[in-house]
């Protein structure tokens, strides 16, 4: 499969768009007006961008506390994202959920939840409903490396395989669960063999390589629809602290060498290098693109600050669906 130039540019733009938005959130966060936890995806953009390229708005995704990139890449509304961070009615959950809860039926981002592993069986249930409905969608389940320690992850894999559901499990392995490295948590477990033994197809991608992830996602989607569940496993790295807007490398829980290794593998840098090689990268155009994203973000912020929050009356009426 070959990726054409336009698509390549689009990949770069998507990576960049997410990066800029997250960077701007980090800056803005310091004003202490976004009053909820934020788990930024800076450094990890390649996976959601690559995966989302093969999804339509009708395909479903569920995700985790670290959900901004999933939502943006799925085509989610930046205004709604910002709205949620500011706790306004315009937010994805009308301010009720906060940064770790995303929901947008317009793009079928069904839900993000901050309980580790919490959305995995829900994605399986969605896959089951798709299968019953015989609609040609897939259910994509994003989760981090720590979620693979929860029992519900295994129960979910097991069920998905048993019923041959159209599900793509996407593991973004950034090697850390908060401050604890994978070595301390997984020992000698072999995730590839594990997934395969459960009768779920296993596809590992190149690290932070959006084109590779895109190609493999295509294969995954086809397989999921025709044969049943697939797991895309992708190593990546977050640049900032687990939760919050800052770099926390001063805490030294991650080896310097490791950080350097990953900085050299920055998904955007990788892509720019490739585009330069085939001469379709234009500095000026790129700068213009970046600036337009930044401008849009800033205007979204300004707009959001002036919007209203949900009325308490409406809130109090939400215990039950009627």
């Amino acid at each position: 499969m070959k990726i054409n130039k336009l698509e390549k540019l689009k990949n770069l733009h998507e990576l960049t768009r997410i990066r800029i938005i997250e960077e701007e959130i980090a800056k803005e966060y310091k004003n202490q007006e976004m009053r909820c936890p934020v788990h930024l995806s800076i450094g990890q953009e390649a996976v959601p961008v690559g995966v989302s390229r093969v999804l339509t708005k009708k395909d479903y995704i569920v995700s985790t506390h670290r959900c901004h990139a999933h939502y943006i890449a799925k085509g989610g509304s930046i205004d709604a994202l910002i709205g949620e961070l500011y706790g306004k009615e315009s937010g994805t959950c009308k301010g009720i959920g906060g940064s770790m809860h995303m929901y947008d039926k317009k793009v079928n981002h069904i839900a993000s939840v901050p309980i580790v592993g919490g959305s995995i069986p829900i994605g399986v249930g969605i896959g089951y409903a798709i299968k019953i409905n015989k609609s040609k969608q897939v259910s994509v389940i994003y989760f981090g490396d720590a979620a693979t320690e929860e029992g519900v992850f295994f129960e979910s894999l097991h069920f998905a395989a048993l019923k041959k559901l159209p599900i793509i499990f996407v593991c973004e392995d950034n090697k850390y669960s908060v401050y604890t490295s994978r070595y301390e948590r997984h020992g000698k477990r072999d995730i590839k063999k594990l997934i395969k033994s459960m009768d779920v197809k296993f596809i590992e991608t190149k690290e932070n390589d959006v084109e590779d992830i895109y190609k493999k996602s295509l294969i995954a989607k086809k397989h999921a629809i025709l044969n049943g569940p697939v797991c895309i496993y992708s190593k990546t790295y977050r640049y900032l602290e687990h939760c919050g807007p800052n770099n926390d490398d001063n805490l030294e829980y991650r080896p310097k060498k490791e950080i350097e290794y990953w900085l050299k593998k920055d998904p955007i840098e990788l892509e720019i290098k490739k585009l330069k090689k085939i001469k379709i990268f234009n500095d000026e155009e790129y700068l213009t693109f970046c600036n337009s994203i930044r401008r849009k973000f800033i205007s979204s912020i300004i707009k959001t600050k002036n919007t209203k929050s949900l009325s308490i009356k409406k809130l109090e009426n939400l215990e039950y669906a009627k």
Partner: protein
Amino acid sequence: MPNRKNSFIDAMSESLVQSMQKDKNVVILGEGVTDVKGIFNSTNAALKKFGHQRVIETPVSENALTGIQLGMSLLGKKPILMHARVDFSLLGFDQLINNASKWHYMFGGEMNVPMVIRLIIGRGWGQGPQHSQSLESVFSHFPGLKIVVPSTAKDCKGLMAASIFDKNPVVFIEHRWLHYYSSNFSKKFYKIDLNNSIDIKKRGKDLTILSSSIMLIESLKAAKILKKYDIDIEVLDLRVLRPLKLDKLYSSLKKTKKFIFVDNGWKTFGIGSEIFANILEKNIFLKNIPKRLACKDYPTPSSPHLNKGYYVTIKDICNEVCKCLSVKKNIKSKILNECEHIMSKVPHDLPDLNFKGPF
């Protein structure tokens, strides 16, 4: 169509089949729902009629199943997940409490979660510490859940249908011993409003008993005995624990001014606690000091020698009523004798004389 006297399980089975007929999105999930026993013969008819596509056998994975059910409901399915014992649902508490109960609310009110979790409370024949818990008060603490506890076949049918077609997660808790009772109910599909916590099962003027599930049945039995002695009990069935609406209780108490609560679970931090708190806060005037009759505050012992006296009996109920109403000693002893006589007919650890162990 005339009503027929049919069993609780008939009612359940009929409610499931008719609901599935009404809406093809209704599906059943669970361990054993397709096996030869079909969850105490309640799912066999549905399986026969709708097949394995809609009556779905599952692995033993309670937490995932609860989340899977939730995921299915988001795409318009109306799944009913069944556990043969309440106790197994504790494995799915993360999905039920952290997710399902809050889902509609926490994502801004746009998604609905129409799902039912059907749970069965064990009792008798050595159903010990891990197979006979009665966790209604725990479920009832959580905003977003509806908690339904039927006591009769007729109610079972209508409440299950209402639960299935409700837009919210409903925990439907049925007591295993109710399976041995029958009542009249219509062959037609019908629903019973879940916003109507209390049903008046017997009118009376001397004292109000509020109870649920199997203990409601026991309370009715007690009331029947007392009636012979001209003691006229009003028996209210608390068949929906959340949302909790107590107006009918207050009206009843205004009339009788005397109150007893009978619980199938533990007293402390139990169902009765919330009821009593409301009575106090509403400043309802009572002539007696009301009492919560409940199980002993420790887990169910398996041995029949040890669980005799663990559950509230008709004798306990009558005894308490006599106390409240200052019934004369000789009448009281007649009443209690009658209770003992009735109780002696069936061993205390069996639901029915025809029962053969094990469950």
